[in-house]
């Protein structure tokens, strides 16, 4: 993908993200943050690609570590967000 296109994509995502996230009430800011946190683990994609093409044992180990920490971030982040969100309920749901 072209450099310019990547930069445009980055800016577009930032602006759209900013707009959408602005509508989230402060009530849900902690789950929002941990959800975003989980999303930042998307770097696992980079880790997978970089690890797959690594040749030496050393870089394979670094690649594996990168994948592991990124997946902890993703799975842990989404799971804990789910746990938190399930606690929010209305009176009549009790």
């Amino acid at each position, binding site marked *: 993908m072209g*450099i310019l296109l*990547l930069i445009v*994509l*980055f800016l*577009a*995502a930032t602006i*759209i*993200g*900013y707009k*959408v996230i*602005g*509508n989230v009430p*402060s*009530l*849900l800011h*902690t789950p*929002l*943050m*941990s*959800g*975003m946190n989980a*999303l*930042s683990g*998307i*770097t*696992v*994609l*980079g880790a*997978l*690609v*970089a*690890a*797959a093409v*690594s*040749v030496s044992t050393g*870089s394979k180990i*670094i*690649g594996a570590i*990168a*994948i*592991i*920490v*990124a*997946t*902890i*971030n*993703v799975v*842990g*982040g*989404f799971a*804990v*967000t*789910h746990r*938190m*969100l399930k606690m*929010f*309920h*209305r*009176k009549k749901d*009790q």
Partner: protein
Amino acid sequence: MTPLAFYLVSLGLVAGVVWGIHLMNKPQTAVRGNLLGALCLLGSIVLTMTYYGILDIEWLWISMAVGGVIGYIWSAWVKMIKMPQLVAVFNGFGGCASSLVAFLLLTGGRVEKGFSLITAAIALAIGALTFSGSMIAAAKLNQWITQRPIVVKKHSAITNLSLCFLGVLLVMIVIAGDPGRNLLTALIAATSLFIGLFFTLRVGGADMPITISLLNSFSGVAGAIAGMAIRDPLLVAVGGVVGASGLLLTQVMCRAMNRNVFDVLSGRTAVQSERKPAVIESRADESVPAEAAAADETEHEKEESAESAFRDARRVVIVPGYGMALSQAQHLVKKLADRLEELGKDVKYAIHPVAGRMPGHMNVLLAEADVPYEQLCEMDDINPHFKETDVVLVVGANDVVNPSAITAKGTPIYGMPILQVDEARRVVICNWDDKPGYSGVDNPLYRKKHVTLMLGDAAESLSKIISCLED
């Protein structure tokens, strides 16, 4: 898979992620939004592995399984009270992964020159400083190291110098050829780790909401820039969204604390040495009558006066703060609220945006204690109603209810939006002590006539009130 198909499916997945976030604007749909986000991320992994033809490399799957199991167990076992630390740690992991990816790209000889090289180097730097900064933040939140700012001599000078050094290294890695690249990569990583650590050490406990939000933003940006280095549109877009989210939360927190993000980062905490004398002086002047007044009323009388205040009240508003989290009093707060509702009172909660140690911290704690979320009111919604409120119960909050923010020009909190509990007919405060809060500004509320101050562990004070009301 053709590149076009890859890009189109990627675009669909990004749209899914954004839609998931959109669903988070209401508690009813938020669970679905989170699941949608998780699904899109799973889809992204499968898509990327298919596109690069690496689906059949076993150890990649094994690594993911290991990380997945650790992450799941961790998230299932963690206590809600430890949530700020957990978010900080996970943040750090995201940054760590991005920097490792960049490290592999730089040392594996797969980025030659230009755009990929510079983006990989920047991703390495941001990822590394996010990692070390988040770990320090987590250690502070977990009280492994003091929550007070740790400042060494010439802190600012050292920080600025290392930032300049990092800049020089980034320029050098671009102009220098292959020889020395590994050394430069290592130096960039080391310098960035140091900067993250050094910056965060100087941040105080109450500035953590801002710091965590900012680090959250950085972890997203690190991912996005690593994505630019490997030209992966998914990584770039989702990283950008996370970066935006962190930035927005940082702004919200700064506004609510009347702080500037640069002040926080440069360690200009509210408790500055030059301001201290003024604060101490004013305490010396006024604390005598406060103590005298406190002596007039015995503990028992206070309990009785708090009890009668609650019995006579129709509208009650509860204001929680970090002290409630510290004394784990959220369940007692809920118990008291239940009792008050049984007695026919109207109970609401007023949540200041920076109460606690991370954005939305109080809401999560109270939700854990089974408080229905429609009772949780945001600052701007509840402030006009304090005049009609009979009793305000403050549990472990200080600066966010300090009227000095409105009246005392020149104090560090002047101009900070507060919960105007002062306007209620009666105020009952369950705080640990009557010392100034994090801002170092004395709280004149404590000395007002309509205020009952119950010092000590909030959980104990609440239990006393509850038992009085149960008879």
